[in-house]
């Protein structure tokens, strides 16, 4: 390499700090996904409710959330929620809440598409053998829908993982925030950012690649 003297040894010195930050990132990922998927599923159900007042409210909520840049939403929640609701949230809690709700809008659309893709006849076949609505949902609608939405579901997961770096803007000690602090401290931003990028690749690529493999298995077996 010309012109720049790469020095990863400096980064290695701070491996414990990065590991701690990585743990925070992992917690953010898991909790944000939990919030996003569960709220998203509920939103999808409300969106598909027969009562128009419910479905239309859910639709507008989804559209608003999809239209707001996630960084803006995050910072807005961080500063406005304490004023509006008189609750005190840590940066970490704010991150999980804002990014979870933000991704819920996208998950909701994915789930809605999946549920709507189920042929009426499959549901009627469940009814005909005497299944209750809950059994039909659990045994037929959710698994068949999940098979069909698998690719966008995994892509959304990758986005959730990447979006966790946004909470560095509100001083949560996850990978990017600690990385930026280390960069200033060590004057080695290129090495540190490279390592952070590699860590994210190491988290996301196994997920997407195994999802690809699983998807082709589903395809060859069930369709």
């Amino acid at each position: 390499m010309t012109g720049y003297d790469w020095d990863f040894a400096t980064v290695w010195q701070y491996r414990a700090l990065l590991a701690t930050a990585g743990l925070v990132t992992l917690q953010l990922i898991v909790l944000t996904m939990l919030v996003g998927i569960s709220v998203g599923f509920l939103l999808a159900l409300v969106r598909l409710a027969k009562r128009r007042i419910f479905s239309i409210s859910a639709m507008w909520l989804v559209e608003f959330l999809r239209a707001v840049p996630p960084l803006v939403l995050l910072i807005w929640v961080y500063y406005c929620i304490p004023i509006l609701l008189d609750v005190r949230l840590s940066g970490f809690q704010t991150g999980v809440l804002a990014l979870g709700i933000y991704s819920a809008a996208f998950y909701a659309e994915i789930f809605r598409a999946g549920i709507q893709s189920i042929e009426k006849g499959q549901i009627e076949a469940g009814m005909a053998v005497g299944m209750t609505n809950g059994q039909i949902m659990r045994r037929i609608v959710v698994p068949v829908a999940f098979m069909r939405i698998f690719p966008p579901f995994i892509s959304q997961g990758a986005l959730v993982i990447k979006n966790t770096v946004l909470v560095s803007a509100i001083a949560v000690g996850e990978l990017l925030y600690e990385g930026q602090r280390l960069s200033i401290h060590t004057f080695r931003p290129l090495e540190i950012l490279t390592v952070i990028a590699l860590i994210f690749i190491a988290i996301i690529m196994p997920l997407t690649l195994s999802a690809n493999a699983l998807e082709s298995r589903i395809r060859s077996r069930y369709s």
Partner: protein
Amino acid sequence: MQSGGSETAAPPVLSVRNLRKTFGDLEVLKRASFDIYQKEVVGIIGASGSGKSTLLRCLNLLETPTDGTIDLQGERFGFRQRSEGEMTLLSASEIARQRAKTGMVFQSFNLWPHRSVLENVIEGLIIVKRIPRPEAQEIGVRLLEKVGLKDKIDSYPARLSGGQQQRVGIARALAMDPAILLLDEPTSALDPELVGEVLNVIGELAEEGMTMIIVTHEMRFAHEACDRVIFLHEGLIADDGPPSYIFGPCASERTQAFVARYVSRHAGDSMPRKSEIR
């Protein structure tokens, strides 16, 4: 209207009175009344839009009747009589429980794509009847053997032909040990060369004494395998009697006209011969 069935001494399995179904302003079914007796095989014929499928779907409450009563083995279906003579709809779970007493075979099979052939058949046994899996599998394998698909138990529906899928659909309905089997145009979605294998299975069930109602366009099948045929015209039961009557010269003019039109239009269809059905 003629009374059908030979075993009139026993009470009917299914008793339908003044069954009505409207969709908005459209009255699809206008006060249909009939009884179905044990071991009877009843065909329902009629033009598209005559209310055949709606009638069948009301019988297992996939459609909620607008008016009228359905009694299966003496149990009032779907509604509870209140003191004032008012009828109230049963809860969803009670309706689900009642539905399990009927078996339904769909025109487009409606197998669950994420379940193997065997799993499709035993799903209701395990989830609804809560029969232990090994026992359910035994029942499932036996039924799949009966419909000639024992070698396909581990296949997935996507790998089966239409005729095979429909035979799985029949096995799935039989697994619940229904008091009556409802078949909604079971061969209409099939390629002509696959119709025979499905009708053969239905014919065998008829021989074994399964009580069945079949909505069908297969006139020869209705003629040969049914004990009784109901002709629906614009939501009304226009004729009801043994095939010899319905397809004979004494049927109502309307019935004769329908049958004549149908037979001439479908003269070229491949239908199994009597020897193949029975």
